[in-house]
């Protein structure tokens, strides 16, 4: 980070310079050290690749990537970039292929990302062609390491990244297994274009402090205002987190009964509460679990509403948030119906999530002209340890701990 002039002030991880959300040089280094660095990036679900030849196009940071299953049943991933002049190899979001052929000059690649064909390699009628020294094996798109954990396909450009289980750590693995313990089915895909830097969204996901302050849906409709049991888990690296809570049904019942006497509050009650009429499917009583994996992956269980989210930077102040809504393959029609209704809580129109789509933009616009200033991330102290209470920014600090480690930023300036 040669000409890096961003100043990191304050004690440890409690100050975040606003410049990190706007600085172009920072963004370039980020692509190299975070997204193409020693991290595992979510690519797709293994159910997205049902058979040999099934592929999906996705991205790691801004780098376009193809994920494809070969006939050996293995999943391969490589840059979606032709070795010749750099054109995209696959143009569709998904499909089935025998191999990949570049549209530009018809160079072709097998499903493992090897360059196997160069059009007119020997020339035409003895004229032209590639030099005899040209060796196809030496050229090809960059390949990623691939790891599948609980049906989640991750990829890494790094040779140094530890195995996925080690990267995630025991607690995060267990929390992923808790949700993805049986086969899932995709029930919808939606993309939200966010008007802010990607880091503002991943911070928001880790920010348990804002939840009951920004999202008034539950409190307004008197659905979930009782103090809940729960906690925040931050892993050793700081980069991954879990925030969870449980609704106490007995207490909720009492609250509803009591509310029944207060008819003047009727207009603040849901007329059709079936939107939240879920069913118990985990025996630990946890009704909400938001889990993040550094840098840009989120797994969500909000009651019976399951989804994975992929956070991709598409520019300094643009982010693509890809939602994949899930059910279990063995859902009954009733269970599936409940999930469809509960999805009203999340996504671009979600009673809870719509606000998360907007606040990042409020920050991005708010910090214009304030690049030399910084955010305060001091709620709940200055550490990154797990916590029972959720009025804390511990997992936001955790994100910065991991981010700074990958970026090679120590305390003070970088």
């Amino acid at each position, binding site marked *: 980070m040669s000409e890096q002039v961003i100043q990191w002030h304050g004690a440890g991880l409690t100050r975040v310079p606003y410049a990190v959300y706007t600085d172009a040089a920072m963004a370039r280094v980020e692509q190299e050290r975070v997204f193409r660095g020693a991290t595992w990036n979510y690519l797709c679900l293994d159910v997205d690749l049902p058979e040999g030849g099934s592929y999906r196009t996705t991205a790691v940071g801004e780098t376009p990537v193809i994920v494809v299953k070969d006939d050996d049943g293995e999943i391969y991933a490589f840059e979606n970039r032709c070795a010749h002049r750099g054109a995209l190899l696959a143009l569709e979001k998904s499909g089935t292929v025998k191999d990949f052929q570049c549209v530009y000059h018809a160079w072709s690649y097998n499903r493992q990302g090897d360059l196997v064909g160069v059009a007119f390699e020997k020339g035409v009628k003895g004229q032209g062609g590639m030099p005899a020294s040209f060796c196809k094996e030496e050229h090809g798109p960059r390949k990623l390491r691939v790891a599948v954990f609980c049906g989640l396909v991750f990829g890494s450009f790094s040779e140094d990244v530890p195995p996925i289980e080690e990267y995630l750590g025991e607690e995060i693995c267990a929390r992923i297994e808790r949700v993805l313990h049986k086969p899932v089915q995709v029930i*919808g895909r939606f993309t939200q274009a966010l008007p802010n830097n990607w880091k503002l969204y991943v911070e928001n996901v880790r920010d348990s402090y804002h939840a009951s302050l920004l999202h008034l849906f539950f409190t*307004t409709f008197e659905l979930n205002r009782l103090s809940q049991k729960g906690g925040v888990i931050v892993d050793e690296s700081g980069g991954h987190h879990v925030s969870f809570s449980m609704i106490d049904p007995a207490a909720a019942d009492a609250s509803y009964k009591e509310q029944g006497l207060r008819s003047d509050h009727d*207009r603040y009650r849901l007329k059709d509460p079936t939107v939240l009429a879920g069913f118990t499917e985990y025996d630990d009583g946890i009704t909400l679990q938001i889990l993040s994996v550094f840098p840009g992956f989120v797994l969500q269980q909000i009651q019976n509403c399951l989804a994975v989210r992929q956070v991709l930077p598409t520019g300094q102040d643009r982010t*693509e948030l890809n939602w994949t809504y899930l059910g279990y393959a063995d859902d009954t029609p009733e269970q599936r119906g409940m*999930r*469809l209704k509960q*999805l009203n809580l999340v996504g671009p129109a979600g009673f809870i999530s*719509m606000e998360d789509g907007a606040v990042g933009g409020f920050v991005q616009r708010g910090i214009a002209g304030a690049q030399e200033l910084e955010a305060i991330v001091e709620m709940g102290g200055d550490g990154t340890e797990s916590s029972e209470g959720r009025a804390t920014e511990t997992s936001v600090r955790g994100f910065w701990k991991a981010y700074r480690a990958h970026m090679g930023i120590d305390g003070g300036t970088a």
Partner: protein
Amino acid sequence: MIDLLRLCAFNAAYAQAIDNDELERWPSFFAERCLYRITNVENEREGLPAGIVYADSRAMLEDRIAALREANIYERQRYRHLLGIPVVASADAGGAVATTPFLVARIMATGETMVFASGEYRDRFVLAGDQLLLAERVAVCDSTVTDTLLALPL
């Protein structure tokens, strides 16, 4: 009898209720048991049932408006719907099936206007007494991407 003109008038009134910020009137365009869903062409092509919005009763639509008024936090914005002419698949004395293309521009508090959504309504209308109502409206957006958030209904 339900005819094209009646469907056009219905759609015009529907769009006007939203665009004029008379959102409380919006649920009244639907039958009590109804389906309102917002999705996109890709999900439809693959038969994926989830929606950005998914409501199977008029009461759920009323709850959504109440939430927008009382609970949700979003920047002031309004829509301008431009609706095409319905293509009527069937119509008789009891109901109609039709699709209508829409274009929705979003006008933000900052003064900026942008094309927010295009697509088509896939509708099933019923006659309840003299009143034309939507038994089903699936708004199928052409784009898979929603800018920032979708607060107001399409």
